[in-house]
């Protein structure tokens, strides 16, 4: 087990380096002069140019620049925004609400998705299963911003059950509707995955053997069907956290949530490339850590993995 954990930890190093390399290359490929960019596209004198180049290591070889970039990312030193605020402070301000939103969406996705998927899987080809399949297909095929705007209009504006937008002083109640919107697309897929997995496990040989032992139906389902079915679902949900963060950009903009997605969106609009890159790099870090966590949960659920 510990060897497995150690190996997974070691594997995150090349993954992280690779990700920063791609980001770094994208950064270098972007058109325009970085110094002009920095100075707001006004002509600069040679002295200022040299000073800026030295400050940002622009004269070093590319390899060294990349290492510097990776080092800054690990030490969370992301530089400053145009307004002079350290980017890390911006992240610190905006990240918590995004995390709360993503975790709420994840919880809705996991609880509803697994419950409904299990019921559908246990009663395969019944009316519940068929309608769950149709509804999930519908949800899968509608883009998230359409769902977002429609729900905002119906529940926020027409019915007035919730506030249509969140604004700077957010709380969990206000985040509920955005979290549901964010969860919807993933949740449809979780239902389908759980359903297939449960239905497949239900006919497994060892489940029949468990019944032959004299276990009650409830016990068989809880101990021998559910746990086995959850292995692929957990992987999917965990990896999903990444897409939840990506989806956050759209949802946060629709509902005006002061999260990291919104910050990224604003930075893109303003053309603050360095801020955008910093936020994306931070997200990569989070994503790498999340997949590490998923792998560890996976090992807890399935003893066979620990020996690979």
């Amino acid at each position, binding site marked *: 087990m510990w*060897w497995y954990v150690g190996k997974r930890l070691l594997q995150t190093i090349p993954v992280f380096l690779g990700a920063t390399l791609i980001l770094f290359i994208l950064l270098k490929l972007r058109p325009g002069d970085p110094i002009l960019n920095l100075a707001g596209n006004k002509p600069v004198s040679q002295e200022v140019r040299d000073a800026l180049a030295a400050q940002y290591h622009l004269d070093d070889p590319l390899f060294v620049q990349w290492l510097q970039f990776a080092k800054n990312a690990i030490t969370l030193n992301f530089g400053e925004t145009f307004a002079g605020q350290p980017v890390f402070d911006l992240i610190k301000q905006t990240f918590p609400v995004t995390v709360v939103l993503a975790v709420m969406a994840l919880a809705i996705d996991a609880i509803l998705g697994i419950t409904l998927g299990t019921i559908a899987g246990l009663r395969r080809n019944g009316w519940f299963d068929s309608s769950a399949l149709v509804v999930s297909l519908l949800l899968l095929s509608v883009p998230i911003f359409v769902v977002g705007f429609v729900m905002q209009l119906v529940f926020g504006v027409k019915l007035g059950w919730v506030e249509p937008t969140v604004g700077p002083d957010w709380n969990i109640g206000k985040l509920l509707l955005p979290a549901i919107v964010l969860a919807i697309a993933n949740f449809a897929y979780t239902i389908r995955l759980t359903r297939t997995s449960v239905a497949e496990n239900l006919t497994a*040989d060892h489940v*029949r053997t468990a019944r032959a*032992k004299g*276990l009650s139906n409830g016990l068989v389902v809880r*101990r021998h069907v559910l746990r086995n079915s959850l292995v692929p679902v957990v992987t999917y949900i965990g990896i999903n956290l990444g897409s939840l963060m990506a989806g956050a950009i759209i949802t946060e903009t629709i509902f005006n949530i002061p999260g990291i997605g919104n910050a990224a969106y604003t930075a893109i609009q303003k053309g603050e490339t360095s801020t955008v890159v910093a936020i994306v790099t931070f997200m990569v870090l989070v994503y790498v850590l999340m997949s590490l966590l998923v792998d560890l949960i996976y090992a807890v659920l399935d003893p066979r993995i620990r020996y690979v």
Partner: protein
Amino acid sequence: MNAVNDTTPLLQVKNLTVGFRAGKELLTAVDGADLTIYRGQTVAIVGESGSGKSTLAHAVIGLLPGNGHVSGGEILFDGNDIAHARKDAIMALRGSSIGLVPQDPMSNLNPLWRVGTQIKEALVANGVAKGAAADQRVVELLEEAGLPDAERRARQYPHEFSGGMRQRALIAMGLAARPQLLIADEPTSALDVTVQKQILDHLDQLTDTLGVAVMLITHDLGLAAERADHLVVMYRGRVVESGPALDILQDPQHPYTKRLVSSAPSLASQRLSSQRARAEVREQAVQTAAEIAAEVSHSESQLGEGRDDIVVVENLTKIFKLRGAKPWQSVDFAAVDDVSFRLRRGTTTAIVGESGSGKSTVARMVLDLLPPTSGTVMFDGKNLRDLKSKTDRLRLRRQMQPVFQNPYASLDPLYSIYQSIAEPLNTHDVGTKKEREAKVRDLLDKVSLPTTVMSRYPGELSGGQRQRVAIARALALDPEVVICDEAVSALDVLVQAQILELLNDLQAELGLSYLFITHDLAVVRQIADNVLVMQNGKVVESSSVSEVFDNPREAYTQRLLDAIPGGSIPLGA
């Protein structure tokens, strides 16, 4: 086995009919079956796959799959009809009164729970024991099932167990709550013959001491007759014959039983007639092979010199590196250790051994699919290692072809039978399109399949038919050597007999040389001339078939011979 004299039967199946719904069709799997088991008695149900024997067993324990149901007749357990009982009444019987030892030990344990926990569940669910007492009982049960070091084993997961060990754990599980009836559904057909014997011996002894009645389900008549006092023969959902084991074996009435008795390899291997038949095949094959050899020696396009020994293996060794105790360490494992043998043109050499003995690794090295660590494989005077050019390698493949164990896995499910057989012809650019089609027809004819199967897909064929297709594919390029790696092990006994006969006929007709890999000595006598017995990568005995059967030198060979089921039963004419 001593049947307890008790007037009321423990289990009585009367005129049972079980149907399956497949779409709108209703298929009858069991059709009016009758069966009686008394307390402490062992009754074997014998039949081929699809005969309804497993369905009958699942009906008795109320575990028919969702689309199956009892559509007629009754199942009386201790006088109560369980075919029409409520669900919770049947559930109360499971485990506590009727135990099950399932067929495939690999898929019948939940991979995510410790083995001990899974046995404990059976104790808790049936109210036998709880908590620490149950843990203690689990260890006792595992010991009783013949698992050494039971305390540590109980804390391990199924993937840390071998097949035989898993089956012991499943036996412990089936007997945990001391049922009165144990259903053993092909409990050993997924295991090696020697392990099979150990497990069955142990099961016999256990059920005898505990006085448990056993319903043994098997496709092997020899095994059934050896283990049960009463036989029930099933064929296409019907019970065609039932009675005392010896009576059925010595005087079978139904044509199907007659066929079973006459051709099940475990029984047939005892007969002298099978040796005579083999001698005739060999004589013819050697003659044909000599003519081919003469041709080869003059031919430019074929590899080899037409030697008498077509495959010569010398000091063949294969060492695999395994992960050691520490992650960065590795351990050398000699899968094949200094193996030498010769395969004469037109004859069959069998390599026999348990799983893990290295026999399949030898086959893969002879086929040039795996590079040996040291030693040489000579094909008709050419060292395989010297075949560097693409043409030489293609020629080798033409002249040596494999047939593998699992006919379900060795055919591409998306290729039609025609495509599968014609593929080697296309790869080697043989003939025009018309000629290829004629060749495929000819091959199907040789393996006794109708040409109508050409457009069908593997999924539509039975196991025996698929293995015939695999043989046809191997023969497509007119090879001189065919390597059969457990080619009949996955098949029912009767189908085994048919495939062996087919292989013999083809050998006589085409002068083929076979390298025949198997774990089952029973089939060897009908197909082979020489035998190599392997254990732990080494050859422990090597001589002619009659020598090995009549006069085995090694204790290990003797053990393999003893493991042939039904070997000790006197047969009728």
